[in-house]
């Protein structure tokens, strides 16, 4: 993937993520949150990452255990949302491509068979847990 394309995707996605979290934070009632997830809206069955916005909000409140119980993926998303845009911006200012190299390296790591199997197992387990919790 080209550098400019990847970096613009990261910047736009991060901005959308920050906007979404800001919007959720300014709402008065937290318990009745809107969902944009098509799977949940159509089938009423949650998807593997349903509840991750709530998880991110709980992390921001410092309630880590509740966040873990809501959706463990919230931690990964919070981490990526903090690190990726900062890294990309530094790269853009310094005119380097270190994030691009890291991205390609991560992609080839994820294509290793047992890493892929591990990841699929984790996501599937999280999905089953989500359905059981009725999130």
């Amino acid at each position, binding site marked *: 993937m080209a550098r400019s394309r990847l970096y613009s995707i990261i910047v736009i996605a991060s901005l959308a993520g920050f906007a979404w979290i800001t919007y959720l934070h300014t709402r008065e009632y937290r318990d009745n949150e809107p969902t944009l*997830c098509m*799977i949940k809206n159509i089938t009423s069955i949650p998807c593997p990452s349903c509840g991750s916005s709530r998880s991110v909000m709980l992390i921001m409140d410092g309630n880590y255990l509740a966040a873990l119980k809501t959706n463990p993926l919230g931690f990964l998303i919070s981490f990526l949302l903090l690190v990726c845009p900062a890294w990309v911006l530094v790269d853009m200012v310094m005119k380097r491509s270190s994030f691009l190299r890291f991205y390609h390296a991560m*992609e080839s790591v994820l294509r290793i*068979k047992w890493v892929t199997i591990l990841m699929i197992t984790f996501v599937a387990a999280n999905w089953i847990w989500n359905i059981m919790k009725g999130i």
Partner: protein
Amino acid sequence: MEAQKVDFFMMTNAKYFEGQYLMWLREQLLQLDDSRWPEVQSQQFKDPTTLLIVSLLGGNLGIDRFMLGDTGIGIAKLLTCGGLGIWSIIDWFMIMPATREKNLTTMQRIFSGTTYGPLSTV
């Protein structure tokens, strides 16, 4: 390569590529050495229509992007319920051009002589 072989290849595989690159592709294939024919012939291209079906059904989980080999973007879509549902709708329209672009990259790799077999589809 012989024009007959090239035309045969073009007829069989034209649907895998963007229309504007077909003439360029033909020129490049005609210039290619005859010994590379088995390599060209054995390439497996991804079908844009199949990817569209996968995108419509499993786009929210990023499965279309995983199939295309864009693992990073696939994970991004998976983690965010298909980019808050918006990205998956964008991808319904973007996945077919993206597939054709990926196929063109495969061909470019042959032309530059750095091919290492068909790309994995995982």
